[in-house]
């Protein structure tokens, strides 16, 4: 894929929802943002890391905040320029391309829109290969990079920079500055070159979204499963959606009435664990999607309605998340669940051991 034209936007955003694993924001906002950007600036060029000089600085971009406030005050064009200026000033050189930090409907659309706004190409890769709730959960960090320096730009022109320190602490600090910014901010992190991206090799992210999105547009869920290599876990009726916030973080449970008994999905922002009658069927870091049985559209978990008939679909994530380090960072225990990781197909092996 060489560019994102208006005709490709629906597929790209629909496919990005897959990588949201039940979170990542309502696709309508992402779709509208991209249509606006393409109509104003033309098709958004995509590049591979190999097409850029290896030492070229790239601009990692992620939208911070919560979907409920993003749909009120999405990013403005000014914030993109402010973010670039701050990152370039610190690095002492120009950025050659925008780099999506994670995949998800909002966080595919925002880097693409930022690229259009800045007149830069967007790299056809990303650092996470899915949506995870913190910017320190990336393959780049598993490869030994520090998440700092972090730049946070708020809508009112506020710029906050976190230049060094423990990645976990920095992740907390970023979340702590979001409330006074109205829970919406444009964020950059990591010091990355095109050569780093080439070595990381998480290629074809936007193209993958387009390919999976095209499959999702076909009737039924089988084309989607073929496209993402996943499997149907179960089909059931939503019996209950509960959320509580005992430790400051929203934790939720979806109960599904299935012909084989009650299934449950534990979720926080994304779906984390799907189990049935006490048996864990699949967990994070693999992807767990919920599709409406009538429309086959993938659904944000918080939008599920009691009585809705749904398919639960699990699919594989980048193999590097299935290392001991990957499981420690993004396995179920990292989210506070006393459960060992189970892959989308029910197996439990680590990467390279299959």
């Amino acid at each position, binding site marked *: 894929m060489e560019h994102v034209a208006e005709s490709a936007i629906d597929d790209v955003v629909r496919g990005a929802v897959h990588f949201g694993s039940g979170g990542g924001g309502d696709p309508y906002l992402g779709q509208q943002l991209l249509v606006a*950007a393409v109509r104003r600036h033309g098709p958004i060029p995509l590049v591979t890391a190999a097409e850029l000089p290896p030492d070229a600085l790239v601009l990692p971009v992620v939208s911070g*905040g919560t979907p*409920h406030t993003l749909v009120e005050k999405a990013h403005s064009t000014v914030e993109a320029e402010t973010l670039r200026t701050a990152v370039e000033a610190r690095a002492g050189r120009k950025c050659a391309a925008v780099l999506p930090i994670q995949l998800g409907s909002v966080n595919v659309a925002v880097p693409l829109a930022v690229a259009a706004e800045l007149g830069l190409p967007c790299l056809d890769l990303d650092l996470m290969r899915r949506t995870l709730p913190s910017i320190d959960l990336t393959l780049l960090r598993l490869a030994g990079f520090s998440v700092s320096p972090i730049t946070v730009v708020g809508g009112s022109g506020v710029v906050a920079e976190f230049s060094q320190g423990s990645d976990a602490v920095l992740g907390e600090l970023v*979340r702590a500055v979001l409330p006074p910014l109205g829970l919406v901010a444009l964020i950059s992190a990591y010091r990355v070159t095109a050569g780093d991206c080439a070595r990381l090799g998480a290629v074809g992210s936007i193209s993958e979204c387009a390919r999976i999105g095209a499959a999702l547009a076909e009737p039924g869920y089988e084309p989607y499963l073929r496209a993402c290599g996943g499997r149907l876990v179960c089909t059931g009726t939503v019996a209950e959606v509960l*959320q509580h916030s005992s430790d400051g973080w929203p934790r939720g449970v979806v109960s599904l009435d299935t012909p084989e008994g009650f299934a449950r999905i534990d979720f926080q922002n994304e779906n984390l664990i799907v189990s049935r009658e006490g048996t864990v069927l699949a967990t994070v870091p693999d992807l767990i999607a919920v599709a409406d049985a009538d429309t086959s559209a993938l659904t944000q978990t918080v939008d599920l309605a009691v*009585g809705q008939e749904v398919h639960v679909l699990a699919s594989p994530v980048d193999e590097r998340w299935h290392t001991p380090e990957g499981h420690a960072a993004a396995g179920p225990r990292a989210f506070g669940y006393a459960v060992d990781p189970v892959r989308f197909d029910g197996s439990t092996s680590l990467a390279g051991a299959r």
Partner: protein
Amino acid sequence: MSVVRVGLDAVSGRAAALDETSRIVASYRGTGSAARLLDALLAKVDAEAVDRVVAILPEPVPTGSRIGILRIGGATALPPLAGWPVEMSTALAGPVATVRGGHEYDGTASAPLDLPAVAEFARRCVGNVRAVAVSGVHGLENPDHEQQAATLLAEVLGPDVPVRKGSETEAIGLLERENTAVLDASLAEFTRTRIEELGTAVRKHNPKAELYLVRGDGTVLPELAAQRHATACLGAARAALLHGAARLAGVPAAVVVDATGSQTVVGTTHGGLLPESGAHREFGGIRIGWRLPRLTVLDREGSLPAAVARARYGHDDLPVVLIGDRPLPDAIRPPDADLAAAVGAATAEAAGSVDRIFWQGAGGREDSAARARQLARDAAIRAGADPRTLRETPVKEALMTYVPVPAARLQATAVGPILEPVAP
């Protein structure tokens, strides 16, 4: 003297008059406008006895008059109408402006409202537009800036240019509320004209009768509110049919199967409400703030028993009411089934809903849930409900994701019978 309620279904050309016990005392099957249906029906009924007329009008087409569009705060990356089909935005958009202002999720102002910029926008609208739409960021959490701008616009443009505010639609999402306000504004003239015509026809028969329109959820909007919100009534015929079919069958709640068209539609009416699907309604390909009821649409090959089982989920004892002709054992086939939508209109209740973000910092969750319930009750009473007989749904809470803050999206609905006019 006994009281008579009239339901007019101008989509299918049906009219029904019901007494207080919801018994049909007269009906009319024909063609023509709602006013003509009323004339024909009241040839058979004493117009003096009619205290309420509830109408379903044919759905408008999504083109209307040229309007001005004002955005308060919000993303410059996503200006008004940015993602609309180009032919639609070109046809409707007069002056478009985004001004500083708007609010945060906790209701505090992001920036002071730029009143000089609002005044400049208003001047650009003079003589150029038939209506104006004003939408502010977090306008539900705090409608203050929208209200200030609307007041200023009214001063400059005068009383003949209607102003629609985003906060008049109870929906999270600036674009969803703005799109709704824009479409309501563009249809303002058309909607006012046709509802005024019907109002005139009603009062010609009985000056004391009240006129209501059916909304997309099958509950009512008073005449004047309906003039302001054309999009609120989208889907009214379907919704009224679901409620009316249960009334005709003499049951308070039901799974309703409508097999009259080329497709079979299965829905549920329960507690006077249609369960929501969570999906947004679209109009002319544009997403608006109203939600769609949960319906299953089947073609001829689709399995009806499976669809009925799903519609019944959680309420295993719901009876099934069938309108039209399909084999379905144990279904109630009510008499006068072709009058279902008209009967649903005549017997419709009034409802109000809340769906917004509540800051739970000060009073905590119980306090915000109480505020949500009160807002839903207030909205139901504004729609015409009798405050003494309101019923409420449980408050549904969705926590904010990705950020640990004490704020949540709360949804609640109150519904009940329409307030009876005081006997003279």
